[in-house]
């Protein structure tokens, strides 16, 4: 009922406004169209000037409001390069933006029709066209040069000795896999996948798989200043590994393996101090529409020191061992089960 009232109210307002608007046109007829048009043109020309001032004041105000809400500085080597490039692009576009918008609104105000001057017949000028073809072309060349340089570093081969971690998306969470002591990830095949004891479809005939560690909630443990290469895949639909603090992103496509690498430069603990936010955490977000749980597809990224990382790694049991404890009777009790939601009995 209240909805109907609302609709009724809106229609009523429309009708009233329309009547007011019509009567203003009647006034025009009484005053004489031309006189009225002249007055209106003057008001509108002036409003364009007001609009411009409001526009720029609004931009500054918005900037002031947003600045404290923006995330912290980039936390990776590529991110620093990104931030620099962003600034250059912002300056180039910013200058063009202010220049053209000011001209647009200023011309509106300045060259409004007021009846005492004739417009200039000015239909073309090759000189002007040449200027505003070449200047943008040069600016674009600069942006492309800076951009491609950064792009080829970011997408180039990962440095030797980079840590490798596999990250796989599925509806609606991430799964990460670490190579274990042998430093190599074993083969996998999608037909082997089952949610009970082979999340990624590892091929158990490949011995390299035996020590691989799987974290079913997709947590990424990275080491400060050690390059990391992410091997990205998907089990079902397209997902996207979005690492906004590191300014990196790559799709996870079923049937295709994609890769990115970067070097984290700030640990989680350092970032907590820098931001003064006790709850600060690096997050991995799914950035490609993947279904109804898309918005909840989150994983935590921890950047730590080498010592912390080694300690953590030592506490982990390989996925195979976790799922086949009977084959490893001599194993010492495992410190922490990785995924508490899965009821895996680790101890005999």
């Amino acid at each position: 009922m209240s909805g109907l009232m609302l609709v009724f109210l809106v229609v009523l307002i429309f009708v009233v406004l329309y009547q007011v608007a019509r009567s203003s046109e009647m006034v025009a007829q009484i005053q004489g169209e031309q006189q009225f048009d002249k007055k209106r043109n003057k008001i509108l020309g002036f409003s364009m000037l007001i609009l411009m001032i409001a526009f720029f004041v609004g931009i500054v105000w918005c900037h002031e409001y947003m600045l404290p809400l923006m995330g912290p500085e980039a936390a990776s080597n590529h991110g620093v390069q990104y931030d620099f490039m962003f600034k250059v692009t912002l300056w180039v576009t910013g200058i063009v933006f202010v220049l053209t918008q000011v001209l647009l609104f200023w011309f509106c105000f300045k060259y409004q029709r007021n009846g005492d001057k004739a417009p200039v017949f000015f239909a073309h000028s090759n000189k002007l066209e040449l200027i505003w073809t070449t200047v943008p072309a040069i600016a674009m060349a600069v942006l492309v040069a800076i951009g491609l340089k950064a792009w080829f570093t970011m997408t180039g081969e990962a440095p030797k000795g980079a840590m490798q971690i596999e990250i796989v998306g599925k509806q609606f969470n991430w799964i990460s896999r670490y190579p274990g002591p042998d430093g190599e990830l074993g083969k996998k095949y999608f037909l082997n996948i089952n949610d009970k004891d082979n999340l990624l479809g590892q091929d158990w005939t490949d011995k390299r798989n035996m020590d691989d560690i799987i974290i079913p909630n997709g947590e990424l443990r990275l080491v400060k200043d050690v390059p990391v290469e992410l091997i990205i895949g998907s089990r079902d639909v397209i997902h996207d590994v979005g690492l906004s603090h590191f300014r990196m992103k790559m799709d996870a496509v079923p049937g295709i393996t994609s890769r990115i690498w970067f070097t984290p430069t700030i640990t989680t603990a350092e970032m907590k101090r820098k931001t003064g936010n006790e709850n600060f955490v690096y997050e991995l977000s799914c950035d490609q529409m993947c279904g109804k749980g898309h918005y909840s597809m989150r994983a935590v990224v921890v950047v730590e020191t080498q010592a912390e990382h080694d300690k953590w790694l030592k506490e982990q049991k390989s996925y195979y061992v976790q799922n086949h404890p009977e084959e490893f009777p001599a194993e010492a009790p495992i410190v922490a089960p990785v995924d508490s939601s899965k009821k895996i009995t680790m101890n005999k």
Partner: protein
Amino acid sequence: MSNEAAIHTDVHTHDSHGHHDDHAHHEHKQHFITKYIFSQDHKIISRQFLITGIFWAIVGGLMSVFFRLQLGFPEQTFKVLTMFLGDWAHGGKMDPEMYYGLITIHGTVLVFFVLTGGLSGTFANFLIPLQIGARDMASPFLNMLSYWFFAIAGVIMFSSLFITTGPASGGWTTYPPLSALKEASMGSGLGMDLWLVSMALFVVSSLLGGLNYIVTILNMRTKGMSMTRLPLTIWALLFTAILGVLSFPVLLSAAVLLLFDRHAGTSFYLSEIYVAGKALPNVGGSPILYQHLFWFLGHPEVYIIMLPAMGMASEILATHSRKPIFGYFAMILSLIGITLLAFLVWAHHMFVTGMSPFLGGVFVLLTLLIAIPSAVKVFNWLTTIWKGNIRFTVGMCFALGFVSLFISGGLTGLFLGNSALDIHLHDTYFVVAHFHIVMGISAFFGMFAGIYHWFPKMYGRFMNNTMGYIHFFITFVGSYVIFWPMHYEGVAGMPRRYYDFSNWESFKQFGELNQMISIAAIIVFIAQLFFVFNYFVSIWKGKKVTDPNPWQSNTLEWTTPIKPGHGNWDGEIPEVHRWAYDYKDDGNGGDFIPQHIPLKEGEESH
């Protein structure tokens, strides 16, 4: 002229009445159904496109209000959601499935049904014959079919909103495998089939229309109307049609292959998938293939939307500045440049799919090249109004607003087109802000400019000015308020297509801002209803047009009677003697010389 004979009878009827404006008499002979429903008159068809477009704009806009309610107020419940969405919003809280359905259909209908069908469908139909001096399209019958395929596509899309598994919900790009597997999402069931069929029919409609527009422009110009005398609207509509004819079939192929994958067991887009507890047999396909096919249309589509708006803005800016458009040939060249480049930049939507970095580099270069013709256009528009005599009609206000928005949205394209920046900004709110400003709002501004400007020709009445100005100011300010802050959210990495941000440490600080954006979106939506109200009331109650050329414009449509019948001109079609932009002293105190006025002795043609 193939349709000359068909319309000839009409023209004779006019002649026998002696060139008076008594069309009423003549039009009574036609039955309501042939005159208004299955009409072959390009002017009626254009109004059909426009009104259908308005319907879809309201539907798509309302959807955005609904999902903005969710985004701005994720904790609250709204009765109005249950009222419209029923069980999809149980207890006033929108279901995520429905949220994704709404953003998908919002995108689809606004891009295709409103800004393609509603924009070029309306103005190509209306302006091409009138401005080139033809009695109708080359094939009025195909033209009518074009509208009816569009209408059926719309009916199918609309019906998908009412099925139990909901409409397609994989985003307007409907990437497989999500859109291919009904196990992956509820919307990938019947809703997706309806989406694909609807799009296929839309492609048919667009091809019938586009071929017609091209043929008409190339073959049916009146005597003296050489290509270099065409108004820029026609040039823009010509390139729009060429873009559509060359790229829409690729979308059709993408849709057909997707239908095969869904129902015929093929593996064009599917490989190595484990979904809903079982592994699928498909091996060897590539989901990336779909993205290539989709964006091969998808990117030209952006220009299919933008070019008509650019053309109309050029025409309106010149008319109401009382100055010739600056750099007519540069404008045409930049249109050609944009059209060519439009086909060579599609993969900039795919920088983060793992594509070859070298290929990515090539696409960066080509993408940023587009900035050059775009910049030329902007500077030419600015020079057009420089030292003009600007009359702020409502149409002119919207054309000026178009330029402002095109600048703002175009410049952010330089961030996204540069792959190293796109790595971070891809699929964040920065993208949302960019494309809504540049191809959403600014194209809408071009469309509004066109509607206010040519409404007198369409209906023989004016739209109400005061309401028009209110509409302009609310929409202009509101659009910036909605989309400007979204750039910041995107720079902070906030992903698009999220139903709720409250569990994210990195993005939840924008809650208050999202509320403000939602409120602004609702106000802007109501302002659009205000426009719709003005539009329909003015058809019957608007101030009558008394001067056949109310804007003192040069182009041929203003030489027709105030309410032209089928065939447009009562007698002979006027001959053209000059270009469309002779806004100069006519020697009798006027400041314009229409195209059909012969050159004076010693006067040089442009």
